[in-house]
């Protein structure tokens, strides 16, 4: 198996398998979770402005007002925003990625200059390292963390690192690094539906439930 065969496998059958497991996993788990249903709330509702599940889905993206939460755990908030936004930019606004998505589902949109994306990639990786350090040093996070937390960190970090190194022609020839990059993305896709990374899909439901249950009582959370 030489570089070219590795790249061809990874680009071909490897991606087929990964995307299939990803789709299979997402649909299966979403059904498994949300099919459990919930009882209807029989208490007489109280109406209040901005108190609904829909509001909470977006409002909860911001830290709750006036509670000084960002001061209490700045790395989680600031580091979290940076690397999530960074990931979004790197994945969805980088020209080759847009081309790839376009070839998959036919939708396309303008990207950002590659130098800017390179910078975003570095910023994203830096933020992720800081957040990891915080998970290790901060007593609460260390206490809560299990293997899955560190594993999912690695699985999310590798694609950005290998992708950036491929673009920068670092360490390995482009062929191999591109193949490693695609392989690391495939691992991420396969693992996502079965780990906490699935929060990407379930957090919207969770926020909606939270907002709806409290909105019923006229409380805008």
């Amino acid at each position, binding site marked *: 198996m030489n570089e070219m065969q590795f790249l061809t496998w990874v680009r071909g059958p490897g991606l087929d398998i990964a995307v299939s497991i990803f789709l299979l996993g997402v649909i*299966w*788990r979403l059904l*498994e*979770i*949300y*099919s*459990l*249903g*919930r*009882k209807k*709330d*029989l*208490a*007489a509702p109280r109406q*209040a402005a901005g*108190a609904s599940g829909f509001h*909470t*889905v977006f409002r*909860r*993206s911001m*830290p*709750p007002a*006036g*509670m000084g*939460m960002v001061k*209490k*755990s700045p790395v*989680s*908030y600031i580091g*979290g925003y940076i690397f999530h936004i960074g990931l979004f930019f790197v994945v969805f606004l980088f020209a080759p990625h847009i081309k790839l998505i376009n070839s998959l589902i036919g939708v396309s949109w303008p990207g950002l200059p590659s130098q800017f994306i390179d910078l975003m990639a570095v910023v994203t990786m830096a933020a992720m390292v800081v957040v990891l350090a915080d*998970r290790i040093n*901060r*007593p*609460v*996070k*260390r*206490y*809560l*963390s*299990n293997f899955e*937390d560190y594993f999912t960190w690695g699985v999310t970090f590798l694609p950005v690192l290998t992708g950036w190194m491929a673009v920068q022609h670092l360490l390995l020839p482009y062929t191999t690094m591109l193949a490693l990059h695609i392989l690391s993305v495939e691992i991420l896709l396969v693992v996502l539906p*079965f780990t*906490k990374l*699935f*929060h990407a899909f*379930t*957090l919207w*439901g*969770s*926020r*909606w*439930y*939270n*907002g709806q*249950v*409290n909105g019923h*009582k*006229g*409380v805008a*959370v």
Partner: protein
Amino acid sequence: MSATLEKGVRVLKEVIDAPIASYFNSCVHCGICAEACLFYTETGDPKYTPIHKLEPLRRVYEQEYTLLGRLAKMVGLSKPVTDAELAEWQELVYNSCTLCGRCSVVCPVGNDIVYMVLKLREGMSASGNAPEGIKGAVNRTVTIGSPMGVKLPAVKAQMKHVEEDYGIPIPLDVEGAEYMVMLSSMEIINFPEYLGAIAKIMRQAGKTWTLCSTAFEATNAGYQIGNSDLARVIVSRIVEGAEKLKVKTVISPECGHAYSALRWNGANVVGRPFTFQVKHIVEVLDEFRAQGLLKTEGFETDRLTFHDPCQLARRGGVIQPQRNLMNMVAKNFVEMPDAGFINWCCGGGGGASAIEEGEELRLEAFKKKKSQLDAVKPDRLVTACANCRIVLEEGLEHYQMDIPVVGLTEMIAEHIPEKGA
């Protein structure tokens, strides 16, 4: 019939629903809920991280309702929950959680953690892993009628005292009255002025009201212990009483959990929407104020601040009414830092105040309320929950802080002019 682990797990299987599944799949172990929980912030002990208090519920959910979880359990990767674990978790689920709901407000992925604590308490109570204190309260409420063992004669005696002091007849079992007033046992024993206040307010507002001999007790230890069956027994009395007397509105007294248990949880436990309205006394007073039925004179001039009971404000949605009422009678009303929706708990809600072994932890947690009060240095502290008053008084005494605690309704009533004015 005795509580067993098997019954406990079965109850958990019954109550686990889509929100809980969604929450457990969304938690990314970021630890931000701990920063909002006073049991962590004041002790610094990571075991008080709210989401960690739900580990047994998570394991039951994963082992029962996810394919990978069931496989993991079969091959022994994931150990079933043991009774010893539930016993160990009792301290976390009861002593160190007052159901104040702050964690649910800050969770970035939107997990309603307090919703899950209530569900976990269903399993804890069914498996016999609830604190003695709350079990005692439930026992007394179900058998005698009130968590502090108050019976109807005691209520009648207090009614007579109030009639003599205030010269206003206290109606009992008056069919067709507009309001049915309830008391919490704290008020019957420690704060009899509440009943007098109600009498004065109702008279001024010209509203018909009544007490109910079969449903004078508002608090619901069944809701606090987290057991729907027992909560149903307690809340059914109120529903039957209200429907027998055909009242329009039931007034939940100055108590936090009584309000949540009846207003928000009652219909779900009884299984059908109520035919009457339920309002907290603060809501009723604000309505009278708005309708001009509540007229006060004179002002308190000393420096007052207000402690928002969690179940009333953050968990109940009643925030502005109490401020309107304070402004009616207080010239020098200052807000505590983090007041209102984001207020910190007094540390004794959710049945926690009934747990003796939780006292030391509660006083440790009270430092948060102390820091709020130190910031404003009030002459007096006003609140609208009898249980909060007791817990606040204990805390203030422990930290040698001379700040009297006053009930809002009582204070309002003092400013109602005598009859004929």
